[in-house]
């Protein structure tokens, strides 16, 4: 492929992978099975367009708009589609409500299932063995790795995404945000708070 530069020379075993990926792309292109322009568009979509800012808009709307919140917890897929987010790896979405009594955390122990339309592609740690192995057995230990500590009596509810249902955590709205616009509220919503490994920012965290 011309027009793409293959950097990452740090690991020699990766160089072999780089060459093999490039070779396969050439073969598939020559055979007419793939159009490199379509590949570029797929990459651009997930690098630039689809990401956790989408999910943050959903959460902020759920915080600010009680009617939307009700629709979201009744059936999240159409409620999220109202904002234009739908499709691949988000065909069937369920929203999970964090409360003072219950904290939700999402994992895929078997692979890397993740709600792409609202969070984008998963970070490396979400797909990694440490997270996949420990989230279901020691979630408080995992939270500690993220610097999060919850009250001893809070129920920890872990959702293992073993089917095509994708889960989006709706964290609790931070105090001191009365009257905030959805746009400003969305700035408090972190990716990790929508997976359940983090909490939203507090008003004092915004510059």
């Amino acid at each position: 492929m011309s027009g793409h530069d293959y950097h990452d020379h740090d690991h020699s075993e990766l160089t072999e992978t780089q060459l093999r990926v490039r070779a396969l792309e050439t073969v598939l292109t020559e055979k007419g099975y793939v159009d490199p322009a379509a590949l570029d568009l797929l990459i651009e979509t997930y690098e630039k367009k689809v990401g956790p800012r989408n999910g943050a808009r959903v959460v902020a709307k759920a915080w600010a708009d009680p009617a939307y919140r009700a629709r979201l917890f009744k059936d999240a897929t159409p409620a999220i589609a109202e904002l234009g987010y739908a499709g691949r790896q988000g065909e069937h979405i369920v929203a999970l409500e964090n409360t003072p009594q219950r904290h939700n955390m999402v994992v895929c122990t078997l692979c890397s299932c993740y709600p792409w339309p609202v969070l984008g592609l998963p970070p490396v740690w979400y797909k990694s063995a440490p997270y996949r192995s420990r989230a279901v057995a020691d979630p408080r230990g995992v939270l500690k790795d993220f610097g999060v500590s919850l009250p001893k009596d809070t129920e920890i509810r872990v959702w293992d995404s073993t089917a095509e249902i994708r889960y989006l955590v709706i964290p609790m709205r931070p105090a001191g945000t009365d009257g905030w616009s959805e746009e400003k509220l969305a700035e408090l919503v972190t990716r990790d708070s929508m997976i359940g490994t983090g909490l939203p920012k507090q008003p004092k965290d915004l510059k």
Partner: protein
Amino acid sequence: MNGAQDMGGLHGFGPVEPEQNEPVFHADWEKRAFALTLAMGTPGGWNIDMARSARENRPPGEYLSMSYYQLWFAGLETLLKERDLVNDDEIVAGHSLHPPKPVKRTLSPGDVAQVLYRGGPTERATNTQARFKVGDTVRAKNINPLTHTRLPRYVRGHEGTIERVIGCHVFPDSNARGAGENPQWLYTVRFDGRELWGEGADPTLKVSVDAWEPYLERA
């Protein structure tokens, strides 16, 4: 299969290490492997369960030694070779050496947005009745199929409660083998932490999996 992909409850992998300001991809080849996998789904004709099976169906040591996108790429090579869409000699040569196999369609740039927006819903109409209802106590069966399954080992043999009747969904155990979608009722089944991990478990822990009816029996 009882492979290395089924990680719930394993020990020894160390702490979770989040990366600050992590990029979506860490190398250009990851982008291309990702995009090739998505794009080849159109002419390749495989389903998501076949793709997952192709990634995980390898010796545990090999699975654990590969990065995420290396697994994706290895899975893609498997799927392509199984269907004679690509031969090994071509990957070595870096060029097409054999005439292309006719394919029904390919992914054009103009189709990308629509194909992604449509996705691949797995719910199917049914005239069967769900066997279980919310609140029922069930046991995850002790099954150990050699082929693809989505019932993790850590819940097998354990009792849980039906929390949600989700609907009738494509059954991966059939779909991955090319044995048809064979839709089955799907449930969210909630387990108590102590039921799964014993008396030492966090008493506040509850874990759920989404399990198809053939994975479950009445407890």
